[in-house]
């Protein structure tokens, strides 16, 4: 069941979510009639809003910026030579390769974590991972074509990382490239045999989109980035931070950082040669406790930066600690929410997460041709799917948005294609998709969104998702509008969501095309203006209805930085959006595990009673 989830937990070692393909009904029957989009539900009549756009100021960096040709690693020459040697030799085989790509990612990950004032994790690991992509057949039909009935994905390449020695020793590197190429080549040949057999049994009349798009040759060399930080100072800060976090009701209080230095070396048989290098840094403050009914409660505040020096100072960290501990104490005493349907506000960051899940994953190009996918938006191109004043795009070239560093910046994707801005919704109309090298009808080329974690085949993924509002109101007015809507709908209260921890969206055709997101901080807003924190709820719904229920946006944009997991692994992303007033949202009771809080009171950390 293909699904994608947005995960924001503090991750030391990202784990790829495995996508288990659901049963395909096959395509061997009669050719289905071309789908006709149903009429859009809901009322698209525009609410009267001031013609003042939400404020967005971005700083971008073009893919070819920061070029430093003299910093080219000898590794690239070894990779290029072996790639050319392999292609020449494979051309003489019975099943020649038509594309061969090498991506070698060297990654240093520093993880420091303290709990309750003491260091619990101290790791500094370096790894080199090789991904070899071999394509046999032709771009029109190759080994990656999805079989009509491959429930368990047996024709897909095995998920694993290739191992490559450190250094730039030609013999050792070339040998590792050769071995992994050989393994992947034979795997691809085997897969193509099944594809061809499958195609023989499929109806010929149906037109299939090609499996691969050739893209322009690129050459770009960046200087190797440097990861600089004072470890002792960070350890001291984390200890102090975590000591402060473990208080009140919390039974867990941790502060951690993850610093990464990444250098990617990419060559392919189209002649592309890329060397990109970057750092990133992440600070997390996390607390947790079990509520009296057994519900696991947690609060997490994270900050991201390009380098450790970009992370918050002590003053900001103190605020993060106060936020999570105050919130946790409040959640501990908060009542459980009841199922609800009615108007709601998604505040900035929650709104960003909402868009990422409800819209962003469904706009990833390959899902429009995946036979097991719901293909939600495939037939809506050029049609209204959102209010006329709302536009959405994804632009990996953005470095900062409203002064905040965004997590989804990159210059070239993991398929060797330069990053492009992808306009997705233009004034309410669906106009495009995030595209990798897997073409779909009307979108034959990549826009540089093919991304992955090492070891997994790349697919189209989000980078920096930005929701623009051409009309907006101040946030305070948004709450007034919510109260008006509450009265109009005769509801006892409206909902305000200020933080969403994550969620998932089902894109499989074999299950409801629904999403579910998990709000952490959810308030009831009563007509008299007072708010009440509640816990234990999920927001659920279907994407088309949700998008058309948007009624207004705030002037202020907030950015959520995080890491997103899907079938091609974990990739850094951001989602920036104004706060949104939604006419109707459905709230469900969240899952409460059958557990109970500790039987005895904590031995040393008693909850402070007022």
């Amino acid at each position, binding site marked *: 069941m293909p699904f994608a989830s947005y995960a924001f937990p503090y991750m030391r070692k990202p784990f790829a979510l495995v996508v288990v393909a659901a049963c395909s009904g096959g395509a061997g029957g009669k050719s289905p009639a071309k789908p006709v989009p149903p009429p859009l539900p809901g009322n698209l009549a525009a609410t009267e809003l001031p013609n003042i756009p939400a404020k967005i100021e971005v700083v971008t960096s073009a893919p070819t910026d920061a070029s430093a040709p003299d910093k080219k690693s000898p590794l690239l020459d070894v990779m290029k030579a*072996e790639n050319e*040697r*392999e292609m020449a*030799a*494979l051309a003489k*085989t019975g099943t020649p390769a038509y594309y061969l790509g090498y991506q070698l990612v060297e990654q240093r990950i520093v993880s420091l974590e*303290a*709990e*309750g*004032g*003491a*260091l*619990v*994790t*101290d*790791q500094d*690991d*370096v*790894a080199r991972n090789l991904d070899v992509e071999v394509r046999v057949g032709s771009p029109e039909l190759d080994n990656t074509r999805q079989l009509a009935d491959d429930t*368990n*994905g*047996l024709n*897909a390449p*095995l998920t*694993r*990382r290739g*191992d*490559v*020695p*450190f*250094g730039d*020793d030609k*013999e*050792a*590197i*070339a*040998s*590792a*490239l*050769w*071995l992994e*190429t*050989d*393994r992947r*080549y*034979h*795997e691809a*040949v*085997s*897969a193509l045999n099944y594809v061809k057999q499958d195609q023989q049994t499929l109806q010929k009349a149906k037109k299939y989109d090609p499996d691969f798009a050739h893209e322009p040759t690129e050459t770009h060399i960046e200087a190797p980035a440097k990861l600089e930080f004072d470890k002792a100072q960070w350890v001291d800060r984390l200890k102090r931070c975590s000591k402060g976090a473990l208080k009140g009701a919390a*039974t867990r209080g941790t502060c951690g950082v993850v610093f990464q230095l990444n250098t990617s070396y990419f060559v392919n048989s189209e002649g592309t040669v890329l060397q990109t290098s970057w750092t990133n840094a992440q600070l997390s403050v996390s607390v947790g406790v079990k509520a009296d009914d057994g519900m696991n409660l947690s609060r997490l505040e994270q900050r991201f930066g390009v380098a450790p020096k970009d992370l918050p100072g002590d003053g900001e960290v103190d605020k993060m600690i106060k936020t999570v501990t105050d919130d946790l104490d409040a959640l501990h005493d908060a009542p459980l929410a009841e199922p609800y349907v009615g108007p709601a506000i998604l505040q900035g960051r929650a709104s960003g997460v909402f868009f990422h899940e409800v819209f962003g994953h469904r706009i990833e190009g390959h899902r429009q041709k995946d036979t097991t996918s719901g293909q939600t938006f495939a037939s809506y191109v050029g049609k209204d799917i959102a209010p006329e004043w709302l536009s959405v795009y994804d632009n990996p070239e953005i470095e900062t948005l409203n002064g905040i560093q965004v997590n989804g910046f990159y210059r070239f994707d993991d398929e060797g294609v330069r990053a492009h801005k992808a306009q997705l919704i233009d004034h309410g109309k669906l106009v495009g998709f995030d595209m990798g090298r897997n073409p779909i009808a009307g979108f034959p080329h990549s826009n540089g969104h093919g991304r992955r974690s090492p070891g997994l085949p790349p697919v189209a993924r989000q980078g920096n998702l930005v929701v623009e509002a051409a009309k907006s109101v101040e946030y305070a007015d948004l709450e007034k509008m919510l109260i008006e809507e509450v009265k109009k709908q005769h509801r006892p209260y409206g909902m305000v969501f200020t933080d969403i921890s994550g969620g998932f969206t089902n894109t499989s055709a074999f299950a409801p095309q629904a999403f579910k997101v998990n709000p952490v901080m959810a308030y009831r807003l009563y007509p008299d203006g007072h708010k009440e924190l509640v816990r234990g709820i999920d927001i659920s719904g279907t994407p088309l209805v949700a998008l058309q229920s948007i009624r207004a946006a705030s002037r202020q944009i907030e950015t959520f930085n995080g890491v997103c997991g899907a079938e091609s692994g974990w990739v850094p992303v951001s989602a920036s959006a104004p706060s949104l007033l939604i006419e109707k949202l459905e709230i469900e009771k969240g899952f409460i595990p059958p*557990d*109970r809080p*500790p*039987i*005895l009171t*904590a*031995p*040393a*950390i008693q909850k402070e009673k007022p």
Partner: protein
Amino acid sequence: MKSLALVILFAPALAFAKKPPEPPAGPPSKAVTNEVLDEIAEEMNRDMKELEIPGAPKPYSISYKVTEVDVNDVSAELGQTMSKRNRHFVNLEARVRVGSPKLDNGNFVVAEATEIDGTAAINLPLEMDKRLAKRSTWLVTDQAYKEALIQLNAKLEARKAGGTLRPSDVPAWTETKPVVSEEPVLVPPLESLDELETRAKTISATLREQAGLRESHVALTSYLERRWYITTEGTAVTDTRRASGVLIEVEGQADDGQLVHNYFMRYGHTGKDLPTDKDLTGEAKHLGESIAALAKAPVMEHYTGPVLFEGEGAVGLVRFSLAPNLGGTPVPEGLSPQEARTFGGALTDKTGLRVMSPQLSVTDDPTAKDGDNKALIGGYKIDDEGVAAQKVDVIKDGVLKTLLLSRTPSQKDQVSNGHARRTADGGAFHGSATNLFLTAKGGVGRKALESRLISAAKGEGLKYGVVVRRFDDAAITGAPEFTRRELVQMIKTTDMQLPPPLIVAYKVYPDGKEELVRGTQLAEIPIRVWKDIIGTSTERTVYNFLAATESQLSLRLQGGTDDGFVPSGGIESAIITPDLLVKELDVFGSTAGERPTPAVPRPTGK
């Protein structure tokens, strides 16, 4: 199971020089101090007294194992570093027993919930912190207690539904004398990452010039594990285990596509126990040459007749066919028959009966640090249940005297002999081998034993006999070679009862000529084979290894252990054995592991 994933390497010891003096001891733990242990004990006492859910039984036993692991791992290929890393963590594990020693929650696998086993674990800080130690103890004890209650209920219900073969007069858990030994056991410090890296690069560079290799790697490890046990019975004891190891692994491919492997592995207490760089580079060269020979060797054909197990081959026979059956702990209730077989059990109820050749005796001695003047890594001061290690005469002159026991007895009046090691689903520790000594009367020299093999083969009308010198070990040689379809097929068709393939085996002809064969697989080895040992050597092999907790199939499917670097899961073990001549075994040829030959020649090498 919530056992710690641990490290280490193994170490056969054929090429060991005389054991050098141990380096000076390093410092004690900075993370687990007496203050920390006092906090854990204080919380244990509070929990023992107060922990109770109304209407449910209280704990009757609580125990804690604190483990601090510090390991340096390096691997290299063709003279270049592949991996270089340190891992350091401290873990606190609580075990809670509810019910009574007569009938408790232990040794039972909850269907569809194997993780419910009355144990819980949490990481502790890398530095002394009393407050966190106490708080962590509180949390894990609480969780383990809740699990223990579920486990007990499930056990009682399962017995009502399906009955039990367990005699009612055999208790679930036996008492043991508390052990108090709180003085830190200091061991030599780890070899540094840089030192290991230099060695790995030097040794692996030897293989650059070797023709016919598909892949190779060299890995070194240096490891220590400190342990502390605290129980409500009064045990308060600490121990430290220390090992260093080296592994050289090579892979090639025969003309018909079958992959061929070989490896060399040694362990000792420290790096000083390992062969010198000169010896190791020699071994690497030898291994490289062996791959070229294996690639040209014919596939073994079906054979039934005498088989001589020499050196590491004899170790393999002991490891894969005898050692798994020496445990006396009853298999956890709730396991499927297939799962239960992985715990051996062929010698259960054979006490007092002859189970081997009368010339053979077996002793297991976790207190031994050396054997035949070579380091042994299988020992300890206390076992995984905090019971003092004991030397046990298991088989005397072919007659089974006792088995290796934990605190979960299989018979009335049976008590632990300090061999609780291997974890099993259900939270039980299984009695397992440590430093296993197999001794023989009437041994002859290796050459004479080979002559005896030829005579025995002739006597059976055979053209040759078979000598085995090394078993495969998927923890080392497993490689990511297979497609998803092939892996699924392997899961379906692999016979889990077969021993690992033989990677160094020869036909030996009457004129003494040896012919290397590949694709050699022994049929299932029944335990009665040990009654048919018709000859032993005077030479003995000392071999250290890690007994992986996963099956050979699992290791093969996942491409070896830990990305093919240093195997990092398993139980430190040693076997000391003479060569063993078996009267008759079935051997057959296997074409398993065939891959397409390379579409493009390797870019380097001759």
